[in-house]
């Protein structure tokens, strides 16, 4: 084979493979676009202010999704209120106090493994421990505790990244001035790490808001058109509501538009939370770069 022919052949082989890679990348983008298109077109017809703020009526075939939205907000906020202090504490230990050794390796291995445990197993665990053993029953608090444990690995990782971004000189400066370790952390390290931690917390919030499997077992109600007043009450939640409307309702065809609307509201909620988190992250990253 001549040199020119060899080069040509190589070029063709390369062109083929690059085209294959590019095709798959286009399919990836196309799939995402399709998912959004489908939900937006289906949901835009029913979504309105009254759809969001009204109670479901006539066995969920009419009315809105207000209690499900409120239930999701309640359970997510409660989840974050539990998991963020624990997660930040764990991250402070790992990043500020711990000496790199077997204990830390074991902790990190546990964190990574916890993030791989299926959400339904967390649900089962929460059902057995919080609902049955602790006697909370199927309730807002049982669901929130379960979700809190589930999002903990992400909160820890997020908080640790935030702490890592704080320059070492901050700590050295504090200690050199005679401050104790805790004084240094509280007054110098934490204030500059808080935006990063907020990012992690909001991402955890988004995850808790979109999660369904654990709350099926631990507290979500099929139909409960009231706003929960107590953490020991059951609650409606957007993702579970969508599941019910899509598969469990006696007239799934009739409630299909409401299911679309619910899906759209859920997607908007999750994307909004993620956008806020990313915005905070980028804003402070740029600010830190200027320092």
């Amino acid at each position, binding site marked *: 084979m001549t040199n020119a022919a060899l080069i040509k052949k190589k070029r063709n082989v390369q062109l083929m493979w*690059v085209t294959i890679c*590019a095709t798959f990348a286009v399919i990836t983008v196309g799939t995402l676009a399709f998912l959004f298109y489908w939900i937006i077109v289906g949901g835009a017809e029913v979504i309105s202010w009254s759809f969001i703020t009204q109670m479901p009526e006539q066995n969920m075939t009419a009315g809105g999704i207000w209690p499900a939205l409120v239930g999701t907000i309640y359970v997510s906020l409660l989840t974050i209120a539990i998991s963020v202090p*624990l997660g930040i504490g764990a991250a402070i230990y790992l990043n500020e*106090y711990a000496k790199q050794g077997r204990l830390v390796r074991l902790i990190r291995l546990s964190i990574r493994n916890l993030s791989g445990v299926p959400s*339904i197993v967390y649900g089962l665990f929460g059902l057995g421990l919080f609902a049955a053993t602790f006697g909370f029953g199927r309730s807002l608090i049982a669901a929130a505790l379960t979700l809190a444990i589930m999002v903990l690995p992400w909160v820890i990782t997020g908080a640790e990244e935030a702490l890592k971004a704080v320059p070492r000189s901050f700590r050295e400066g504090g200690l050199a001035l005679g401050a104790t*370790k*805790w004084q240094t952390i509280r007054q110098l390290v934490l204030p500059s790490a808080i935006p990063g931690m907020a990012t992690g917390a909001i991402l955890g919030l988004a995850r808790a808001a979109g999660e369904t499997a654990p709350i099926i077992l631990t507290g979500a109600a099929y139909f409960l058109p009231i706003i929960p007043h107590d953490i020991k009450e059951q609650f409606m939640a957007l993702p579970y509501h969508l599941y019910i409307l*899509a598969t469990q309702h006696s007239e799934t065809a009739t409630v299909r538009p409401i299911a679309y609307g619910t899906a759209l509201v859920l997607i908007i909620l*999750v994307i909004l939370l993620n956008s806020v988190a990313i915005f905070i992250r980028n804003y402070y990253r740029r600010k830190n770069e200027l320092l």
Partner: protein
Amino acid sequence: MRLPSLKTNVDSNQSVVVTKQKLTQKSFVTNLGDYLMEKLFLVLGTLAIFILLLIVGFLFREGSDAIREVGISEFIFGQSWYPSSSDPRYGALPFIISSVMVTVGALLLAVPWGIFTAIFISEIAPKRLKEMLKPVVEVFAIFPSVVLGFIALIVISPIVANVFNLSNGLTAITASVILSVMALPTIISIAEDSLNSVPSDFKEGAYALGATKWEVIKDISLPAAKSGIIAAVMLGFGRAVGETMTVLMAAGNAIDMPVQQLLGLTIPDFLTSVRTLTANIAIEGSDVAWGSLHYSALFVVGMILFVITFIVNLIADLLINRQRGALRND
């Protein structure tokens, strides 16, 4: 204040100690506070270990009744699951097979899809396109699984019913298709990380020898990133096998063995309704009587699921660490 001399005689050493004491003199309360905070953070830091142990311990504790009464071999090899019959059966084999089938089917789609996309993002796309594609992958990862399940129900299942001429499109293959979308972001991001971690001098050396871009990808980047890419597939497996809502909504949830006879062989049937381990827990867990044998049996199902994902994630973890170590030493 006298500056401590650098000479190492006893006197000056003492004065260093004294000076240091003065400098670091703090109230008892401050010191106590510091001590207590350190201990508090130690407790919180080890929380992840405790939670992991608690989950394992709890699954075993709650599941032990069923294991004692039914036997672990019946759970793993028993072919029928009739928890509420007068002669209850607790064979989880149909669920295990369904979980593996649906997951393997998903990976057959998601692995080439994810790896080729990762190669494109990491090696081929120009920088600006890369910056646009990365958020796309991130958005995939935040899609709530119940929404994807809904899409499977209304979009994929009618297509499957049409193509294969079935009366009901809720089958293993429907679940596989939507699960591949769920596993995709995991596979892309881990594979891409591992391709990015290949040192650029490896590639530059090959370019200098006259290799084309594709030859560099095929002969340098992919082999160097091999462990990480296998880890991406393993994590994708773990993600898919543990996924509940999409399979619950897309797979149809029949409790029979998902197999058919073909030429005297028993082979998995992808065109039939299946129920996975996760779906079974979700379906039966919401109204099971606490403390009953059935309740305990569900914890055994959870245990099987936990063991599968734990092993898969552990292997993935080892592979990622191995690649990091290998590339660092080189």
